[in-house]
């Protein structure tokens, strides 16, 4: 696997905030089809790293290569068009808009080609796509209601539906299970496993049970650097990781 060109590669990726080095010279590789978890204590640089990968934050130095193409200078919206899709740590659905509109917005993104596509779309194409995605996450019944009326856990699912509607090649999830009840976490894990059959999944996660359960490989960050990488079993057994992160 390591001999193949990775789907995503960062080269000496660095971001400093004033004097603070949030991410320092990180070389990170992710292969197509993986479910990869990034773990690490608060302030380890996880969110900064994925934010640079998605284009929300500009790196101070270093390069990001996606599918063999240098995307370091590409704005965030153009990276979405390449298939890099991000879901927020804090739920940020459009609360005042209907659930339908929340999903129609990303769903129409791929259909809007050229001037004509921007001004008029076949409503049916968007509706079918929204319907399919809402069905996938189990929210089909609620399309007409405002997103704010959904309970917290369902807003998480809506967030995921919005990401799926973009047909991601690489789905980046920032703490997707945060604030969910245990049965909701089980449902989300099952959903992520299904998604991973078509997309590469990169998730930041604090819940070790989810990490061990879902991911094929785990990357451990601390102090802006990658301190370990391996299978969940290897990571569990790594004394350095235990010292820094698991606190054993």
């Amino acid at each position, binding site marked *: 696997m390591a001999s193949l060109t990775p789907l995503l590669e960062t080269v000496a990726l660095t971001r400093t905030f004033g004097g603070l080095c949030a991410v320092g010279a990180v070389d990170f590789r992710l292969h197509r089809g993986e479910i990869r978890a990034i773990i690490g204590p608060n302030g380890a640089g996880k969110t900064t790293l994925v934010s640079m990968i998605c284009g929300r934050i500009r790196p101070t130095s270093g390069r990001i290569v996606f599918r063999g193409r240098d995307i370091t200078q590409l704005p965030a919206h153009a990276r979405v068009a390449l298939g890099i899709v991000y879901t927020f740590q804090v739920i940020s659905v459009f609360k005042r808009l209907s659930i339908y509109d929340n999903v129609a917005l*990303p769903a129409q993104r791929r259909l809007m080609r050229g001037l004509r596509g921007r001004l008029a779309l076949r409503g049916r194409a968007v509706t079918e796509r929204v319907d399919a995605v809402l069905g996938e996450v189990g929210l089909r019944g609620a399309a007409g209601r405002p997103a704010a009326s959904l309970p917290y856990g369902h807003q998480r699912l809506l967030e995921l539906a919005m990401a799926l509607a973009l047909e991601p090649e690489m789905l980046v999830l920032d703490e997707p299970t945060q604030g969910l009840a245990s049965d909701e976490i089980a449902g989300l894990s099952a959903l992520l496993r299904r998604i991973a059959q078509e997309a590469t999944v990169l998730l930041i996660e604090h819940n070790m049970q989810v990490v061990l359960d879902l991911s094929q490989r785990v990357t451990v960050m601390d102090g802006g650097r990658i301190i370990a990488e391996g299978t969940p079993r290897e990571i569990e057994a790594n004394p350095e990781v235990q010292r820094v992160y698991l606190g054993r």
Partner: protein
Amino acid sequence: MMEGPVAELGPAAAEERRRPVRALHLAILAALLAAQFVASPFQRSLLARIMVLGAYAAGYNVLVGYTGLMSLGHAMFFAAGMYATGLLTYYAGAGAAAAFAAGLAAGVVVSIVVGVIALRTSGVAFLIVTLMFAQVFYLTALYFNRITGGDQGLILAGRLAPLRLGSLEVPFTDPAVRYNLALGVFAACFLLTLWLVRSPVGRVLIAVRENEERTRMLGYNTFAYKLVALVVSGGLSGMAGGGYTLLFSYLGASFASVLFSIYPLLWTLLGGAGTTIGPLVGTAVMTYLLDLASGVTDSYLIVVGVALVLIAIRFPAGIMGTIRARWARWLP
């Protein structure tokens, strides 16, 4: 899982299509068309003014109501249209159609230039930057008062070729002509905004208003969409300015002053920002209120102030916004 009964998407979407959105908007235009046959000459003139200014408010609403960008500089776009149309007529003897097209073009060009710079900011900063640009425009119009007529303005009467309908020649200031041309200008803005906000682009604009960062992370170049909104808004404002000049045979720097940037804000907020019908309703209510107040007191601008305060405290959603929230969620 979900509380309460919920509708399936299919029927919900079908129901959406049955809602009489298009019929309602056409009915409003039909009512305006019919009103000229029952209104007194004074009312007819007032309605013509309301329709042209309502077109201006509709343009303003595209930016403020649907895209969430608060501008205090729209008088610049309105006046750009006014000066382009008026000065071409006054000095070059341009025909009405060409002058009107120039007014629209002026609104578009000015909004592109201002937008590329001002849209680097957002929120209060955007409001201030647009205000500053508009003040520069206003002061420039005053500075060149030998050409623009400054505060006094210019009167076009006698310089504008009358409208020819076959062998019939009628001046633009003929009440019937004025009324129907005003209706035409308003209808164009009204239907264009209705269509725009229900188009895929409109959905993106609304998303920008609700949460720009999220919209960007769904793959939309939000700067480009905001620029489109500003140019549509500025273009419609310029068109309204050009129309105003033709129909009322006057142009003057007072239309470029900050008061004329505050008016569309007031009309839009009163009628309901982010509703297609709100700008017309707000313009009409405010115009009639001012008309009543000016019969009672000279300091009628106090009505403007009181209205703004009341809206801010009691009806942040405006008239049509409140109606939509309470009774008709389907209103665009």
